[in-house]
């Protein structure tokens, strides 16, 4: 029941229904290993673009997760169950990557030929020096318990992160057409994201120390130190 080959067969090999997914037949529920080279976008039936319709992504994921989940194949052969486990892992991984903007951009860069984070560890010029200065200022504000200064830092770092993300998004939109220098730039920008995240985390109070004593407005709490 495995359909190997570079091209998605138009029809299910088992029941001749027209296939809409590379891994499952809507008609007879048969599962297939995806053809080599099937990327996460193709797996979920979405166009390979950075801009993504979150609702469509969620719906595609739920539909596919339902269709290939091992729970649906309990009574079937060991092979069918093991294939269901493998395909579910693939679908979960695809959703994990595509549902997050940074991971999605990173994945598009990988599809465009890299470099990967392991191949190129640099960040944009001068960035590390900036981070070191920032970290010192944050430490000072923290030890002085200066709530205003901490909040100013938090806002400015969040703004820089946003700016960085927008640059990445612009590049990611046209990732397939990027030359090597632009791909290297995209790599550097992506590498710098985790520094922003670490800084922001340092600025957030430890949630365990926060007492949820009074009701808060819904949505993500804006946890502040001091």
């Amino acid at each position: 029941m495995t359909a190997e080959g570079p091209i998605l067969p138009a029809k299910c090999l088992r029941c001749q229904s027209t296939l809409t997914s590379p891994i499952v037949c809507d008609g007879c529920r048969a599962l297939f290993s995806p053809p080599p080279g099937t990327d996460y976008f193709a797996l979920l039936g979405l166009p390979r673009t950075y801009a993504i319709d979150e609702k469509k992504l969620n719906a595609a994921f739920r539909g596919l997760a339902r269709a290939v989940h091992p729970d649906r194949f309990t009574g079937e052969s060991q092979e069918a169950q093991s294939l269901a486990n493998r395909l579910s892992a693939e679908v979960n991984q695809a959703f994990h990557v595509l549902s997050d903007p940074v991971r999605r951009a990173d994945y598009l860069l990988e599809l465009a030929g890299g470099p990967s984070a392991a191949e190129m560890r640099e960040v944009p010029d001068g960035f590390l020096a900036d981070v070191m200065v920032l970290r010192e200022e944050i430490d000072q504000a923290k030890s002085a318990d200066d709530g205003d200064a901490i909040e100013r830092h938090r806002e400015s770092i969040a703004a820089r992160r946003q700016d960085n993300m927008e640059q990445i998004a612009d590049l990611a939109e046209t990732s397939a057409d990027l030359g090597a220098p632009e791909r290297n730039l995209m790599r550097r920008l992506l590498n710098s994201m985790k520094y922003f995240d670490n800084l922001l985390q340092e600025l957030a109070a430890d949630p365990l120390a926060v007492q949820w004593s009074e009701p808060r407005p819904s949505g993500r709490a804006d946890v502040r130190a001091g």
Partner: protein
Amino acid sequence: MSDDRNIIIGIDLGTTNSLVAFADEAGPRLIAGPGGEDDVLLPSVVAFDDAGRFQRIGGEARAHAVEQPTTTIHSIKRLMGKGVADLADDLLRLPFRVDRRKGGDGRDVAAVVVGEKSFTPPEISAIILRELKARAERHFGCSVVKAVITVPAQFDDAQRQATRDAGQIAGLDVVRIINEPTAAALAYGLDRTEHATIAVYDFGGGTFDISILRLEEGVFEVLSTNGDTHLGGDDFDHALIDLFTREIREQFGLDITTPTIKQQLRTLSESIKVRLSNRDSAPVEIAIGDDRVYRRSITRAEFEAMIAPFVDRTIEACSRAMKTAGLTPPDIQQVVLVGGSTRVPYVRRKVAEVFQRQPYTALNPEQVVALGAGVQASLLAGVQRDILLLDVTPLSLGIETLGGAMGKLIPASTRVPCRATESFTTFKDGQANVKINVLQGERELAKDCRSLGVFELQGVPPMPAGIPKIDVTFLIDANGILNVSAVERRSGQSAAVQIIPAHGLTRDEVRRMQAEALVHAREDMAAHHLIDVRTTLEFDLHKARQMIERYGHLLNPEDRDALASEIHDLLEYAKQCTDAHALNARREAFNRRTIPLAERAMSEALQEPQGTRV
């Protein structure tokens, strides 16, 4: 018995109690034991005789725990998938003996020792599972082989494997292992169209779990999970026991060491805990011999101060779970309580505080997991198809890297099934095997994480060092259990993966135990049968003797003497006979011989009221 009906049962294999359930179109229901409709909780207690032969299970076994503390096994769930080295604290408290299992090629597998015999935790659990299986078979009137079994969400791979092994030993095909809090959420059977975020606070006898789930369009999606596999109502008991032990030592200079008194204290502590759930104080009286009595009373405030450190740990875990899910209390629409320890008012108060919401307790917290297991079983059996459960892995999976660090491959709270692939190579020319130490845990160093075992890749083609590229795929399946496969990239050949579980049983051991359990079950049944026949025979002989005494004069003396000596011989024979069939045959033959006497005795008896006796 036929098993053509595709029945799948749901089992809650608990630290304190176990239950079995199923679901049909009408919803989930519990299957009761021989005691009638309300007999749904099977205490997870198994009693052996001094020789290590199975004796009793459930409530009966628990009732005799004080008389035979060293051969009554409880809380076996705490030992599942563990080595003796993991259990130091537990072992001091348990009245029965636990030792490292013998003959295990360097593996540290704990085993309960009873007399000359020793039992691994899966074997003890299998006895409980067999009883639940039998209850289900009586209910359905046919054989039942498929089951869903629940485990605490925080159970690691070894503990899950041990649970699955227990099922196999009991003759069950464990079609799915599911997490207890997830099962509880399923039991509440929220409407398919409902959208909600639910926190499940599951505080049982030995484990604590908190899971946060989102329900949308019939998909139950676990967002995060947190907890502690070594935190539960047992700890409340131990706090009380420690207090009594200390005070008795101080007041009377007496050290409590005997297993019987330890077991008595345990029973007492359990009832104090229950008493304080609806009263403000509980009196305590312990006779310690020589007419000395230890007396005091425990107030609810004292008890709450004692258990606060344990409850605080659960509350911290709740905060962590919310953080992982990126949520704050107002985002959560419902808080569900599971497990016997949530009956403690202090626990309820603390939960209400952390989630800023009164918890929802429509279902019995001790039954809700089993009901949920029944729902999941019906989903798998295809009774209903519109609900889907997407769960996560509770612990990070990684491998030991050079220098003893934990190299993380799959982070905690990743949706399962999930997989990670990692390449390995050789260090020496021509090296044929590569060993990988697979870890689970959140710590940075390998030695602080739990080793699931050493996976050995075999049959690597002979090549210079560093040339082979072996892609190893770690797949965590829907049960949360790890599957490892390996392919050598150059040759495209799949390498064999030999697994040496650090704290578990090998496949062969499980198969052997399953076979042995079957034989034992037959032996037990035979032994049971023999006892029945012997009892009946003794009863028959007793009646015959009475008859001879009273109506023997109706027989001629030779016949009477022959019958009397036959009774004597049969009694002797019954003492040493081990064949129930043969014994029963002799019993029936004897009864046939007494028929003439019985008839004469009967007619004589009818005339008796008129009263002439020779």
